[in-house]
């Protein structure tokens, strides 16, 4: 069983503080981190490998050379190998061009060992579109299952995997033939505290770095900026609503005014949730 997890390096939006008044964001102290959802994706691969007692976990990332950091992080969590595709040709990609480049890298990885399962994060916290995963699945012509919240069992005789897929108001029980691709959210598992041997392995690990030339039969016009149908038109601050009335006076007066205003909404209160 060969599992490939796609991992992206993103700025830590917990640290990026947005000043709501100036509309500017303070990137000074924002380090780059492994997209949190992708960390759960790697963790799930580790769980599956444990479940089967065997298998290989590779992680794949597209990004600048520094992105090797998220590959090392993935090794800490328990991945076996890590590939980074890094090249000017990939720069400025939107989700369509990203899924194309990643699928080409996956073809190459499959040469080393056929891929049975691809796992992506539900979305990346910077772009957060959630479109790359399904895109990769289409390009590889394998079924995508998004929003997986539990991997129930994996049947190696039948080549099927039993999954819980989250819906707006409930979930689906899905049986998929693998190879297939799934995207996972944070609910699917708890990130474990990495054991020392993994830490040592990660500290030592040298990710495999590929440029566009290392990938085969690539149609360059489909890469990077050129290969991206969407472009950012204008940026603007949304028209400011004039805002409502302020309740004046000391806190007691404010509160009683508010209760007065809420009188006609009584029927909404004390309702069951």
């Amino acid at each position, binding site marked *: 069983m060969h599992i490939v997890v796609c991992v992206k390096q993103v700025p830590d939006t917990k640290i990026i503080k947005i000043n*709501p008044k100036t509309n500017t964001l303070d990137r000074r102290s924002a380090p780059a981190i492994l997209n949190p959802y992708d960390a759960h994706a790697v963790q799930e691969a580790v769980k599956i490998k444990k479940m089967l007692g065997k298998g290989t976990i590779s992680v794949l990332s597209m990004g600048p050379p520094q992105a090797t950091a998220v590959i090392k992080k993935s090794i800490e969590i328990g991945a076996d190998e890590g590939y980074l595709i890094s090249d000017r040709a990939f720069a400025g990609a939107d989700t*369509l061009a990203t899924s194309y480049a990643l699928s080409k890298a996956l073809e190459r990885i499959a040469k080393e060992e056929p891929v049975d399962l691809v796992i992506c994060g539900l979305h990346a916290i910077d772009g957060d579109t959630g479109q790359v995963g399904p895109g990769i699945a289409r390009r590889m012509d394998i079924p995508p299952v998004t929003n997986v919240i539990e991997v129930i069992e994996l049947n190696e005789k039948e080549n099927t995997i039993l999954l819980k897929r989250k819906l707006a108001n409930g979930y689906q029980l899905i049986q998929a033939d693998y190879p*297939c691709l799934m995207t996972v959210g944070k609910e699917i598992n708890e990130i474990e505290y990495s054991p020392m041997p993994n830490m040592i392995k990660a500290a030592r690990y040298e990710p495999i770095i590929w440029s566009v030339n290392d990938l085969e039969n690539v149609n360059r016009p489909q890469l990077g900026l050129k290969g991206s149908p969407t472009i950012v038109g204008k940026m603007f601050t949304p028209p400011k609503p004039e805002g409502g009335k302020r*309740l004046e006076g000391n*806190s007691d007066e404010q509160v009683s005014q508010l209760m007065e205003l809420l009188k006609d*909404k009584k029927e909404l209160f004390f309702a069951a949730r």
Partner: protein
Amino acid sequence: MIEEYRGVWVFIEQNEGEIEGVSLELLGAGRKLADKLEVALTGVLLGENVKALCPEIIAHGADEVYVVDHPVLKDYRTESYMKGIMLLAEKYKPEIFLYGATPNGKDLASAVATDLNTGLTADTTMLDVDLEKRLLEASRPAFGGNIMATILCKKHRPQMATVRPKVMKALERDVNRTGNIIEEEIDLKEEDMRTKVLKNVKDITKKASLADAHVVVAGGKGMGDFQGFQLIHELADAIGASVGGTRDVVEAGWLPHELQIGQTGETITPKVYFAIGISGAIQHIVGMKNSEFIIAINKDPNAPIFDVATYGIVGDALEIVPKLIEQFKELRKEKGGEVSYV
């Protein structure tokens, strides 16, 4: 030739014969676009035994409905649904194609965009068209910053976007509206499917209850610490409301992620929304600004949250909230203490 592409399409998401609210909202938004572009508004409906829904779709603004009815389409599945959509899109070539940003809508749109090799804008909160270029202007909060970015797709068709639920307004249902219903044949075999839906389970998670709540009490970092945030829960209990919060309080671990309101959380439109100790960054605003009656409590008179509030109280939440709790307990007594269900 992108000129061949004409018309505005909306994917009508149905679950077990029920149309998703967002699909009706999109018909409302799509109507405006279609009128500007002087083209037809088309609803696209897939499923098993769903023809009966077509009149509803027309009543909500569609000029025509393409319906693909097939047993294999009973439950949503990417592979079967995208086959249906591809069939229609390649045959009739729409210029604009909108989907609800629901789990299924996003899933389907992403797959379809890949096969059509076209652009897809995610989680749109504003839609417009540039008339002479016939360009869809799909806007969403940009990464970071309190700014919106307008995403364009100039050279590829259809122009696709997923749209956040509850940000667009559905039209009044009008049963007198008329339109065509076009049925499409599709050849699907269950045995070709590589995914099987064994069952669908409805469970009203906290998340769902937050989405449906009439009254929501949301708290932000301004509550100071985990202790202070408990006031939010107390107030919610006193009112019988649901609790929500900003991403920062979720990150701080004061609240589970499914109760986060905003761009990367839930979008909700309760009748009453309390925003307490919340600054009002755009990523939060987009998740709640369409609530009917918004009360903001913040000690900073310039906090942007006041811009979207119906009523604002400038003051210390830690002082005001306990008083509110008292008041509501009183009110409850008046009502005889019993819990009335709405």
